[in-house]
Structure formats: C-alpha cells, structure tokens
C-alpha cells in the first residue's frame, strides 16, 4: 500500500491509498477520482489517463515506453512530465507520489 495524491486541474487534491502492483490509473478509477477517463481500461491503447508527474517523482516513475510515448503525443497538453497513469504500477518506492491531472483527457 502506498499513498498517491491526485491533484485535479482546479487544484482539488485526492489522497488515495493504492495497493502495490495496482496502476495509478486504477487507483483513481476505483476511488472515483474525477479527471481520469481510462477509456481503454488500462491497455496502453489511448491517452485518456494522462497525468503530469510531479517533477520530484519523475526519476522514480521512469520514462514512458515506446507505445505509451506515441499515445502521449495525441494529448494536446503533453509536457516533459507526462505519463499514462495505467503504465505506472504502485510500488513501495512510490509511496507519497503526486500526479497532476490535465484540463481534459483526449
């Protein structure tokens, strides 16, 4: 179990305990955090669970994979901190993770 803080576009924070191995996307969807659509259900097939990882967590969450990278390119708000949250699995090292949600999912 580790704590993830999801920050909505308007600044509203949701601190959620997410089980180890569960994706950051699922942590949001299962707990009703608004702003993550996850249309493809976590298959790395769309870009609707886009998040911006807080800069201090970027190294631990790592780089997007190649398919993820292509899909992130579909998101108009993509930046250097962008990840698809379905591709970040919760681990003890990520306890305290902060992710910011974009204005909309595309």
């Amino acid at each position: 179990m580790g704590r993830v803080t999801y920050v909505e576009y308007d600044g509203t924070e949701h601190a959620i305990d997410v089980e180890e191995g569960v994706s950051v996307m699922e942590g949001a969807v299962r707990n009703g955090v608004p702003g993550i659509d996850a249309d493809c259900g976590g298959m790395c097939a769309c870009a609707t669970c886009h998040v911006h990882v807080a800069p201090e967590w970027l190294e631990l969450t790592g780089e997007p994979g190649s398919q993820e990278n292509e899909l992130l390119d579909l998101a108009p708000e993509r930046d250097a901190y962008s990840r698809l949250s379905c591709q970040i699995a919760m681990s003890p090292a990520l306890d305290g993770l902060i992710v910011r949600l974009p204005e909309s999912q595309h």
Partner: protein
Amino acid sequence: MPPLEEMPVSSAAPVPDLDTSASQARDVAYSVPIDQVDPAQPELFRQNDMWWNFERLRKEDPVHLSEGGEFGRYWSITKYNDIMAVDTDHQTFSSEPGIALVREEDKNRESEFTGLSMFIAMDPPKHDIQRKTVTPAVSPANLAVLEPLIRERAAKILDDLPVGEPFDWVDKVSMELTAMTLATLFGMPQEDRRLLTYWSDVVTATPGQGLVGTREEKFGIFRDYHAYFTGLWNERVNSEPTGDLISMLAHDPATRDMSPLEYFGNVILLTVGGNDTTRNTITGSVYALDKWKDQDAKLRANPSLVPSMVSETIRWQTPLAHMKRRATRDVEFRGKQILEGDTVAMWYVSGNRDDEVIERPNDYIIDRARPRQHISFGFGIHRCVGNRLAELQLKVIWEEILRRFPEIVVLEEPKRVYSTFVKGYESMPVLIPRRN
C-alpha cells in the same frame, strides 16, 4: 454444417431493435458454411441485418477470411480485444493507403483523384505531424469557446421544430447542428453549411445506390467540392491566420506545402469525420431512446445521466462500422496466417457487441458501469481526434431537448445508409407531440 436447430442460440434476450423480422436474417446468416461468410454486404447494413454474421463469427471464427465477394479478399477481426490488438500495432497493420474497404470493381482504377491522401490513412511520422496541425481545433480551450455557440444553435434549431406534425429528424436537427459546427471549424459562411453534408454523403456513397448514379458523376461532384476548398485555401493562405482548420493547414509549416490532393484528402477526412459520425449518433440517440422507453424515463428523471447516455449511444450506434488496415508482413494472428499485403477489417460494430467485454451488449443501457468502454473511436495513434467535440455536440443537444420536449416519437423505422463503413441514417420521421 449442422442442421439449423443445432445452431447456437443467441445469448442475448430479444432486444427492441432486433425484432422478430430479424430471425429470418439470422437463419440465413447461419445457413452458409462458415468459410463462405462475408460480412461486408452493404445491403445487410441497410436492412440492419448485419448483426448475425458478426455474432456467428465472434463465436465460430473470430479472425475470418472472406474471398470472392464484393470487397474481394479480406480478413475480418470481430472481437473487442483482437480489434484493440490490431489497432494499436501500426507497425504490422498499416493505415496506408486507405482506411475503408474498397470494392473489387474500384480497385486499381485510375482517376484524377488517384493519389488522394489524408492523415488518417498515413503511418508515422507523417501522420503524427499532420494530425498535430489540426488538433488545436478540438483542444479543451477551443471546445470551451465552441460550447456556447453550439448551445445557442441547438436551442434555435429545437425552437424552430414543428410541434404536432411529422418531420425528418435527420434533416431538421442532426444534419443542421453538425453542419453548422463544421462550417465554423472550417471558417466557411454558414449559408454554405449544407454543402458539407452533401459532400460528406457523396464521398461515402456507392454509385448506383441513390445519391450518385455513376462513378463519373461522383468525381464530377468531387471537382466542385475540391474547387470550393481550393478557394478557401487561397483566401486563407493570403491572409493572417484566422484559427480555423483551413487557416491552420494553410499556415502550419508542416502542412502548408502539401500537394493539392493531400490537402483535399485531409479536407475530406475532416468533413466526413467531423459531420457524418456525430450526425448519425444524434439520430441514433433519438431512435434508441424511443425503442428503450425505460432508458428514456431514466434519463428524464435524472438529466445528469446525459454524458453517460452519450457514451452509451456512441457504443450502441458505432457510427463507423469498420476501419481497414494492410498487413506489412506475414503475421500469425490468433492462429491465422495473415499474409503481407492482406487487407484486414476491424469491425468496430462487432467489437462493441462482444459479450466477453461488454455485458448485455445488444441492450442500450444509459447508466452502464463503464460507458466509455467502447471501441467506436478506435484505439492507438489513429484514435478519433474529434471525439470530445462529438460528445460535446451530443451532450448539448440533449440538454436542450430535455428542457423543451417531454417526448419525441419515432414514427417509423429510419432509412439506413447503404454502406459497410458509415453506419447511419438517411432519414427518420418523428413527431414531437408537445412542448414542456
């Protein structure tokens, strides 16, 4: 072949839009040997009888080869997860040179429009570059600007509808709203908006099936369409950027040097994608809520279900029935040997009815647990770029309908489009008995 009575029975209970007249069509679908099943039959789509081939293929031969029919040799991918696997593997399954099945008689026939290309039918990196040029038109910021305009137009369209007398919903509402929106996106005069509807229909029309008589006639209309948009390009390219799609294409370094046929191809893509799909889903929503009265009552009791109803309609309608790919290499897929160069049809219309992924898929249920889980927008890098604009138009028209009309009665079955690609409606007579 087993006798008919041994055929597997449908797992779904009877549903309102697949009534008893369909059972005959179902018998026909199950009566041919499986290797002769060919789901790409436009007449079945016009009759709304295409479901049974797909039901059968999902169960008996989910990755299926058809040969010798109207569209020649092609593979059908019919299950949700298999479609997703193909859609997300653009290295193996290319979108070039086109994304809709082509009739045998049209293959290898040259015309002045041969070589027409559009970014949906390109692979990376060119696809990514051109797609990015037009993406700002449907950005959150631009949608926020468009929403009040769409709402004002939707209100006017609905306020002008006749009450107590029959009219065609497709013509008076679905076409009007979507044509207005697209004309705005293109920066066209509003009085020309219905040209877009017409051209969109011509693009996807089969010669000899109503709208256009012959292939030559179709290309003649293309010439007018092309000339119109060449005029718009010339206006935009010689003035400051105006923020509309044509201006974006004419000024962006990535697209301003496009060939005329590439420009025209992208115009066609944006016309069909930005008009036809949303139009048919708007009509589909009225039809489905008339057939499933319990869902209509649910929506009216709880208007906050509108966004969920919109997603469910997009799934249930599946306004584009398939997308085509071309295998770039020999590949074994689910035990089948697909050869380099083979045509592969991802049948979204079938994937959206796959009961391994979607519960009671033939039923229209506006408050599903995960309404956004559908394959109508596709997945992977070609996923629909205008999906949020489509959802916005549907949401707005329904919010405005609910304010005005307690009931919309569908008077008879709609006339459906003769196409294996565009799954839509030519007309649908309705009656609004009274206002709120």
